[in-house]
């Protein structure tokens, strides 16, 4: 005959074992859910469908120093400064693709684009517009190829693309990590305020005739 106290002890221990098993199972389930959630690449919210539009990217070519407007279908935000930043990120990331005619390293490029209202100046016949201040990433500037032509092509490509997509921009300045910076990679002037104009260009070769006006490529800003 089993004593009463032993039966009570047995059932108490059995109940404790079952409770601990349930607690462990619950803990395992929660840990499994946490791990699954961290590996899930699905966006938290479904992306909003944005209509694409035709935008010209002014693409540079190192071989002939040309800049060619190239139409592309892009989905861009409507807010102007965010739109300008997205556009420039799209432009500069296209140069990191294999086979690029103006190869640049991949990685983050533009931190911010600030648009500031510019009053018109009657003395210089300049119309009112916006000054775009482009804040480039230091890592982008540090990895940019060094040379007059290659740096100038990057700047002209940025200017042309911004001018084409946001015609209200009349002037463009550059910062690097929020600070003024003298050159892009040792040559092209980043302290200069550039006029936002159409920078499409295809340099012509030197000409033998005595007409200096025909001796150069289309003037740049």
């Amino acid at each position, binding site marked *: 005959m089993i004593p009463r106290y032993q039966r009570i002890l047995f059932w108490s221990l059995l109940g404790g074992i079952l409770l601990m098993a349930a607690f462990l199972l619950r803990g395992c389930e929660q840990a499994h859910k946490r791990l699954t959630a961290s590996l899930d690449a699905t966006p938290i919210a479904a992306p909003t469908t944005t209509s694409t539009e035709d935008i010209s990217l002014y693409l540079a070519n*190192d*071989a*002939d*120093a040309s800049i060619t407007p190239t139409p592309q279908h892009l989905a861009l935000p409507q807010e102007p400064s965010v739109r300008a930043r997205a556009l420039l990120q799209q432009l500069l990331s296209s140069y990191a693709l294999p086979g690029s005619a103006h190869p640049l390293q991949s990685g983050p490029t533009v931190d911010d684009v600030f648009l500031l209202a510019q009053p018109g100046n009657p*003395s*210089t*016949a300049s119309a009112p517009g916006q000054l775009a201040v482009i804040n480039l990433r230091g890592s982008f500037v540090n990895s940019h*190829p*060094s*040379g*007059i*032509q*290659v740096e*100038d092509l990057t700047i002209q490509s940025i200017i042309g693309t911004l001018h084409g997509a946001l015609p209200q921009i009349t002037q463009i300045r550059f910062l690097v990590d929020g600070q003024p910076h003298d050159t892009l*990679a*040792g*040559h*092209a*002037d980043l302290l*200069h305020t*550039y006029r936002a104009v159409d920078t499409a260009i295809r*340099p*012509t*070769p*030197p*000409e*033998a005739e005595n007409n*200096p*006006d025909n*001796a*150069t*490529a289309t*003037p*740049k*800003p």
Partner: protein
Amino acid sequence: MPRTIILLDPAHGGPDSGARFSDQLLEKDLTLSFAAILRASLSTGGFTVIATRDTDPTVLFTADQRAEIANHAHPSACLVLHATSSGNGIHIVTSALTPPGEATGASDPDTPHAPAPWQDAQAAFIPQSLRLANEIGLALLRAKLPVILTQSSIHPLDNLICPAVAIEIAPLATDGSDPIPAADLTYQHTITQAIVIALTSWRTHNTTAAGASR
């Protein structure tokens, strides 16, 4: 015939090393060695040559200091020498400034002694700089070298008060083999000879024009 003064500016120097071609070769060294070759050839051709630097300075040698040396020498032509590993052939760059006659609100170009703003000092010399660039470009084309004429905002080019061009040596693409690097001595000698021919022609044209104006 009076000796024509040519100013050479081997770009970069000191802590500013310019482009890095390899662990051993920097743009500041390449431009200095090319300037030495060009200087010898120009001197042989009857030019008086002044250089902004003959050695690698220990401290930063700013663009403003280079422009000051050049502007005090009153040269007939200024050649700013650069090198790069991007592109193909020779890039001849002139300032992107607008000549005074074309700039809205600019000072009267007929006023000979009007002070020129430092940042835009080159503006008055743009037409002459374009002619010089064209002359050098033609000579390089005749030497069967690819040439690209462009304009850019770079220092000290914008601050020079003389006909001025920047000459940037890029690798030379060849059919079916690796490009010839900018440091190749044969390539540099070909460029040098073409520049001497171009400057000789430039000097002749200028002398003829000066004679005709008298």
